[in-house]
């Protein structure tokens, strides 16, 4: 009986967990409700959107809102596919570049001794608390001075360096034993081979986590489209969705906007679900000591 102290990570269900479920389930329900609602709303036909009293669940689901969404953008001159393409291109480029630079830097900061390393690490640590919206204006000045306005670089480059991602990946690289790297060096491997053949395979979970983080940042980002891009055909889905939400205050527009919201939300969720066990694995080493 005295050894019954272990409650964390139970292997199987016992009666004590019912109490906890009774507390957690209502809270979880509250968290889930808005998302359940937006899913239902996106599939509501016109008469249900106008229904009074308003309904929560959809009764006769249709894809009307999604087809209307396509038509809306066609009438605006720029097809929806263009925004989708922009978003995909920007997201893939940013995530790819960010992962490459972040893992390289994490390797250097963790395993290579060079002058200025401690200082650079410290600056990155402080920058975890960086609030991007605060420096929107100077960022604009930098980007416009570099001539990047209306180019894809204005979407990509500002979001590539993500201090939190570097921090998390570096914590993970720290766990790779030095002896492994030394052994590789003795076998004649250079630093690039060590990075590519030893570090990268081991830190896969941290890479997945960084990917989730950067993806979330890029996919939902509106600032780059709003402030650094003037050309409508260069803007991203998120931006278009937002104009849609703002333009359609009427009830009719609600369904279309809900459909749009759902389209933006689902990839984010799916990516997280795919990566969730890696993310949890990385989070275990996420501590600041």
């Amino acid at each position: 009986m005295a050894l019954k102290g272990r409650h964390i990570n139970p292997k199987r269900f016992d009666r004590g967990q019912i109490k906890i479920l009774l507390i957690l389930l209502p809270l979880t329900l509250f968290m889930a409700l808005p998302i359940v609602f937006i899913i239902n709303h996106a599939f509501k036909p016109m008469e249900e959107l106008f229904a009074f009293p308003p309904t929560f669940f959809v009764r006769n689901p249709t894809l009307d809102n999604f087809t209307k969404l396509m038509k809306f953008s066609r009438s605006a001159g720029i097809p929806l596919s263009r925004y989708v393409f922009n978003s995909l291109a920007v997201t893939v480029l940013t995530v790819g570049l960010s992962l490459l630079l972040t893992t390289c830097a994490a390797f250097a900061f963790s395993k290579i001794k060079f002058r200025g390393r401690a200082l650079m690490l410290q600056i990155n640590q402080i920058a975890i608390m960086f609030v991007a919206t605060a420096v929107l204006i100077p960022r604009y000045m930098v980007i416009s001075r570099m001539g990047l306005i209306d180019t894809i670089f204005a979407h990509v480059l500002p979001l590539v360096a993500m201090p939190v991602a570097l921090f998390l990946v570096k914590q993970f690289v720290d766990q790779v034993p030095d002896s492994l790297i030394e052994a590789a060096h003795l076998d004649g491997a250079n630093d690039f081979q060590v990075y590519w053949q030893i570090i990268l395979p081991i830190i896969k979970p941290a890479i997945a986590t960084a990917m989730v983080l950067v993806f979330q940042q890029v996919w939902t980002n509106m600032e780059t489209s709003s402030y650094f891009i003037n050309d409508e055909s260069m803007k991203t889905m998120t931006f278009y969705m937002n104009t849609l939400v703002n333009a359609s205050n009427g009830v009719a527009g609600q369904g279309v906007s809900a459909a749009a919201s759902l389209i933006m939300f689902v990839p984010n969720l799916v990516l997280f679900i795919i990566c969730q066990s890696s993310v949890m694995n990385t989070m275990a080493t996420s501590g600041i000591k």
Partner: protein
Amino acid sequence: MTANIRRKRSAIGRREHNNPSGFLFAGPYALIFLVFILVPVLLAVILSFTNFNAIQWPSWVGFLNYITLLTSDEIFMQYVLPNTVIYAVVVGIGGYILSFLLAWLLCNLTRGVRTVLALIIYSPSLTTGVAMTVLWKVIFSGDQTGLLNSWLISLGIINEPIVWLVNTNYLLPIVIIIGLWSSMGIGFLAMIAGIANSDESLYEAGAIDGISNRFQEMIYITIPQMKPQMLFAAVMAVVNAFQNGTVSALLTGNPSPGYAAQLIVNHIEDYGFMRYEMGYAAAVSVALLLIVQIFSKAANKLLTEKD
């Protein structure tokens, strides 16, 4: 031959102290970091000492912007600062405590159930920004077609629909509730990982040493073990609490009616992009960056001194 050996030796020596490939690997990240994070921050600091309207060359005004901010910006002192503090306390500290409790409760469940519930609780943080605005507009709509109004009327709690998004009494609470709802992000995940990976044998030892309930177990065994994760989550909570402003601006407009839900981020946008007083906006930005630093430092102190 000897030259070759000497070069090899110095290569090993360099690897120990100053390996140039460190610059090669860290360089690209450092460069992007410099150009898009560090330089903008420094520019913001410089701009904050100027008067700049985005057209003419900035003119040096010394501390005038900061003096104005502290002494004569009534909107900032009366609405923005109190709103930001209330928002940060409830969403930052409240959200932090809530995320710990939720994480702890979740870790008392079996793995499968835990994963599903954690996913549901985490998913709102994926919706930050624009995507969900339409939803909140439907729920808080000011007439009878609003979901919340309709529910409250049918439950008999209110007789007349409440104009949620115009009535200044409700704006800040609504923005806070939405903020809390979406605050279970990466910090929350770190907490779960921290608790789930705590050393199991300590719980058994604690039980022998007379720890009799789960609350004691949480205070004396779980928390001390996951300090690093607690700190990481705290920093994330602080950043999250201060950088949010989109929800307020999208729901209620910028400036919001009667400045009732105006947060510091909205104030920066208001001055920077609507009034084009960039120098002043930069001063507010610098103030914001400082506030976030101070609060993170405070969290750091609080969590590390408890040992």
